[in-house]
């Protein structure tokens, strides 16, 4: 009986190593500074993680499908700048600016998906190229100027970033709803299973009659949709944006997805675990800030913790800590 208990605890540990790591951090930081689990702080962290989180949901699809998307950071800058600019354009206004921005961002995602899915180009190269190309596009569009909403009290545009419903900040709500929806799509629908199949074993997927190109194409559309949503939250939260607002986010997003246990080789990962990965990143950054550590130290500690977490996750899966390449 007791042995069975130990085994099942061990089983949970093995399956949810990342969750355990998350709890360890949370408890550790709380001892360090009790304000860490202050309800305002917790909501604050989740709210500021929402932008990264929404992006990570889309990238999870791309990664499970066996590809990478490094263009999401630039794409976020693009969508934030575009939505703010159109918002200020009297011909558009907020109600039209948002769908127009979504359409433009989805076009970029479609271009990614076309190049990778239908022309079978390497996703690392394509999205790395798009990272620079979209940055250039954004600068061309804005002429290098910051975009700001001039009359902030006269618009309802701030609701996505600053509003709250039922006492929950809207960004958190959007993140939660989108995570639930995409989680169901990935886990419970035929499309979701096709994404796993394409990323896990492309050849087998082809022989099973799965249209690989279309599946890959759609993962990039989902990614672009998520980025557009994140861009909307970002623009609404700061009511203004620099051309470089998303710079460097692509790596943080990827870190969160990998931290959640998705394999870079494709075929594994879940939305739930990505959400945990995002929260770990958010709480680490917040915890280190609250601990009052020097910035340089924070950088080092963040990545030490990420690598430790990944190790813990892998080690629990393998059932051993030491496993050299044989």
């Amino acid at each position: 009986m007791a042995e069975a208990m130990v085994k099942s605890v061990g089983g949970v540990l093995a399956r949810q190593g990342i969750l355990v790591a998350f709890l360890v951090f949370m408890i550790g930081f709380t001892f360090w500074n009790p304000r860490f689990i202050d309800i305002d702080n917790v909501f604050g962290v989740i709210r500021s993680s929402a932008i990264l989180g929404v992006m990570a949901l889309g990238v999870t699809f791309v990664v499970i499908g066996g590809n990478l998307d490094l263009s999401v950071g630039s794409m976020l800058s693009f969508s934030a700048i575009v939505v703010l600019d159109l918002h200020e354009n009297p011909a558009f206004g907020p109600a039209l600016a948002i769908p127009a921005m979504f359409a433009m961002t989805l076009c970029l995602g479609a271009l990614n998906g076309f190049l990778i899915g239908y022309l079978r180009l390497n996703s690392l190269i394509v999205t790395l190229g798009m990272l620079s190309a979209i940055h250039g596009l954004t600068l061309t569009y804005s002429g290098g100027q910051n975009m700001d909403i001039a009359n902030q009290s006269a618009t309802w545009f701030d609701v996505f970033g600053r509003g709250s419903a039922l006492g929950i900040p809207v960004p958190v709500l959007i993140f939660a709803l989108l995570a639930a929806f995409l989680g169901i799509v990935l886990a419970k629908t035929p499309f979701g299973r096709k994404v796993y199949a394409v990323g896990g074993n492309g050849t087998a997927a082809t022989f099973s009659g799965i249209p690989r190109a279309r599946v890959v194409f759609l993962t990039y559309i989902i990614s672009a949709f998520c980025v557009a949503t994140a861009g909307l939250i970002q623009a609404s939260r700061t009511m203004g944006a620099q051309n470089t607002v998303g710079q460097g986010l692509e790596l943080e997003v990827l870190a969160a997805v990998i931290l959640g246990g998705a394999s870079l080789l494709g075929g594994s990962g879940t939305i739930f675990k990505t959400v945990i990965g995002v929260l770990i990143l958010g709480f680490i950054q917040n915890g280190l800030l609250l601990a009052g550590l020097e910035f340089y130290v924070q950088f080092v500690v963040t990545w030490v913790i990420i690598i430790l977490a990944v190790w813990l996750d892998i080690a629990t899966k393998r059932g051993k800590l030491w496993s050299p390449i044989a």
Partner: protein
Amino acid sequence: MTCMTKLSLACSTALVAFAGAAAAQSVTIGITQNNVGVDSYQTTYEQAFIAAAEANPDVEVVVLDAGGDVARQIAQIQDLIQQDVDAMIIWPTNGQAVIPAVREAFQAEIPVIITNSNIAEDGFDFVRSFSGPDNVTQGARAAEIMCERFTELGIQDEAQIVQITGQPGYTTAIERAEGFENRLPEVCPNVTLVESQPGNWNREDAQRVMEAFLVQYDDIDGVYSGDDNMGVGALNAALAADRAGDITFVGATNFAVGYDAMERGEYWGSIYQSPVDDAEAALQTALDILAGEEVPFLNYFDTPKITQENMGEFDRPVF
């Protein structure tokens, strides 16, 4: 185009009148900028520089942009040497890496003016003048603005403040923080600076840092940010936490968003640094040197204090 027409007109008139010798009346100045388009300040600087040059019929300019790339800037400096410009203005992409190229220009006897942010001290021997803002003074002035405000509010003996700095390692960020931290205890010895964290010149980063500060400290009376863009991020965080009313926000490089927030009474003060003044000062420094005038090595243009009280004297920034 009009500039070119004017210039050629001026040149040909001069040629007719003085037969060749007068070609010296017109000067060619080359500029290689850091990264136009990366932010509004640099974009406006370039426009102002070209406008100032066009307004002066005796000046022809070669305007180049390094796009933030050191290697490209070095190549551009070498190009300008080949073109044998009369003077060269450089906005360094990297204060250390451009020195060898600056030395080549020096050896080619082309006067070099550094604009906006200075190169490292090793290169000073090859440079005729630095034209730009004095960031240490800007930091010091921000400390004075903060202290004067606390004195008005009667909290100069108990106030606690936090600082949000620019990108770590960036000279402007270091100098402003240094000016602020040195001056504050001189004017307000009892104000405590409880913590500094970088906001990386990024509004979203500054907002996140400020959210953590608000959780960590129950009592924050003032926030000093390395520029207004970050300052507005901090303000947004405080507004969301309903604590902005208790906090005096002071920044630097007055941006339009900062100016507007001052107008709404949410943001207290900043340092007015105009890219137009910056560009015009650089061009004027070059012209003064070519005219053989004595120019100080550190040729700062003035960056005055701006607060809610005197903002009427300043135009809304264009960036």
